[in-house]
């Protein structure tokens, strides 16, 4: 592979790539669906995060929280009152502060606080409020405070909000439509118009052509993933980790696109295969959409290992430790698909002759 020629072809792909309905579909469809979901399920015009506090002592944190403009702070007199407020949606997160909280924080002692959350509340609001509370505690201690927030979820699995349930589907659509279709259509087009034959008669190799088209797929796939997560307000926690996972997912999508492009003869066949194969790719999203479906159904699909880390990071504030196993499986899948791309590129070389 020659990097200079790959960059020349990449420039051509970016400037002269598909300018037809495919590109519109790749970009507009996920954005439009995201906006519709946000509008229907009320995440587009949400108010400030609402913070409920029940203070067993007289913590300065309450006053500090009330002074903040970015959140709305409400106080309650009893644990049952704050639970009721959380369940009714009056607040997104309700925290019960122990009696000697300020002293413990300033002495550097380990403190445990209980945070009540309701399944229907928005993940991003909960993340903002947890981060805000941790900041306030740090401000009081003058250093990193040893505050452990224990979450207690009110309500069952069935109460997961629909915008959270739909997020995996929208993310998969954003990452995979662009990542698969752009390289696949571009490659099929080059085969049909025989321009691929003209390219490989120059010192350019089939590998150079595949690399350029694959990079375009990764770029559009990653960009769409970032845009969709941003539109769905899921980019609040661990953005770098999210970008890492999205990149690995974009690589997988692009590899699948190259395999399809190398093996499939025309766009009509590609769309027909997409209708069937799409169900396989989107199966993990169905598992999140309908929690009654056993999780193992999702786990046998490669896309599960993209969706699961994204959900853990964006909805459960998870870190590297929580997603490392699935991310490593995702890396393994990327390597496996890369091997298949190399194999099919050799087959493609024979086919274009």
């Amino acid at each position, binding site marked *: 592979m020659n990097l200079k020629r790959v960059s020349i*072809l990449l420039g051509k792909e970016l400037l002269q790539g598909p300018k037809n309905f495919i590109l519109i579909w790749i970009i507009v469809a996920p954005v439009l669906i995201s906006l519709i979901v946000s509008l229907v399920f009320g995440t587009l015009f949400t108010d400030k995060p609402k913070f409920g506090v029940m203070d067993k002592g007289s913590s300065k944190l309450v006053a500090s929280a009330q002074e903040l403009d970015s959140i709305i702070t409400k106080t309650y007199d009893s644990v049952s009152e704050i639970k009721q407020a959380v369940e009714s949606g009056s607040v997104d997160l309700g925290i019960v502060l122990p009696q000697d909280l300020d002293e413990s924080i300033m002495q550097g002692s380990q403190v445990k606080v209980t945070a009540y959350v309701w399944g229907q509340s928005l993940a991003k609001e909960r993340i903002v409020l947890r981060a805000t509370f941790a900041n306030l505690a740090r401000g009081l201690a003058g250093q990193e405070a040893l505050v452990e927030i224990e979450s207690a979820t009110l309500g069952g699995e069935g109460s997961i909000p629909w915008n959270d349930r739909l997020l995996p589907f929208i993310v998969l659509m954003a990452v995979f439509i662009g990542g698969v279709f752009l390289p696949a259509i571009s490659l099929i087009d080059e085969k049909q*118009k025989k*321009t691929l034959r*003209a390219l490989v008669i*120059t010192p350019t*190799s089939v590998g150079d052509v595949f690399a350029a088209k694959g990079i375009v797929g990764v770029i559009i796939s990653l960009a769409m993933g970032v845009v969709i997560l941003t539109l769905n307000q899921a980019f609040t926690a661990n953005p770098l980790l999210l970008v890492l996972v999205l990149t690995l997912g974009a690589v997988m999508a692009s590899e699948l696109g190259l395999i399809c492009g190398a093996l499939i003869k025309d766009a009509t066949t590609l769309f027909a295969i997409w209708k069937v194969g799409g169900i396989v790719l989107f199966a993990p999203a169905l598992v999140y959409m309908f929690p009654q479906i056993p999780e193992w159904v999702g786990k046998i699909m490669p896309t599960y290992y993209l969706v699961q880390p994204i959900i853990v990071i964006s909805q459960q504030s998870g870190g590297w430790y929580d997603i490392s196993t699935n991310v490593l499986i995702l890396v393994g899948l990327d390597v496996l698909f890369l091997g298949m791309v190399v194999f099919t590129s050799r087959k493609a070389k024979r086919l274009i*002759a």
Partner: protein
Amino acid sequence: MNGNMKGDDIPCNAIVADELTHWYGELVAVDHISFNVAEGEILGFLGPNGAGKTTTIRMLTGQLKPKAGKATLLGIDISKNVDRVQGDIGVCFEETNLYEQMSATENLRLFARLFGMHRFDCDALLERVGLGGRGKDRVETYSKGMKQRLMVARSIINRPRILFLDEPTVGLDPTSAESIRNIILQERERGATVFLTTHDMMEADKLSDRVAFMNQGKIVALDTPHNLKQQHGRRALKAKISTNSGKLEDREISLDTAETPDAIHELFSREQVVTIHSEEASLKDIFIKITGRELE
């Protein structure tokens, strides 16, 4: 010593095909063909559709791996080291395969960059193929003849040492065809070896130093047009005579027999000759004589 010559000024072979063979399933497309093309030579490769011409070009340019035999370009085995010769060859395909949504200039610049051509005068090349002033237009707006001229321009962008042209003038208007023939001759003048497949016997006769007739995957004749005509052609004298009843009749006298002088004398002494002309065998006649089939 000139790089194009061996010692004693004997031209090197730019192309050597040795028992080159390829088949698609049961069909043997190219059947153990062997030939050499010297540097600076134009070889016309003639044959009807399905004779194996395009398969031969694809094997010679490294697009297709021979099932048997070997092809060597500029001394390099194409099956093993295709990447070492790709910079030295140019290919004009039979089918138009340009980026139609790009302009002619964008097409040529893309390929020039892929060939690593740093000094490349796009406008001069377009002018040379008769597309001056149309460089910025999208290729999809071009006529077939203009596209074909652009294909030829693309094939010579890297100043190739060997130029493969697969039916470059097929279906073109006379002006476009003549323009392409001139470019082929200019390339030969520059020193390029030209491997030209064509249906057009007149074109092959006019351009080629030697011609190869291909039929059913085999080379059935390979020589200069002159020698082929000498060996296989029949020269004749054709006359129209006026009979006693006033009708015109044809007479034909072979020029290559011992009886020719007597026959000509008899024609002029006994008949009333209206018109007379000599006729030389064409490559088309020779092809039909050798293969028993027409080119089309």
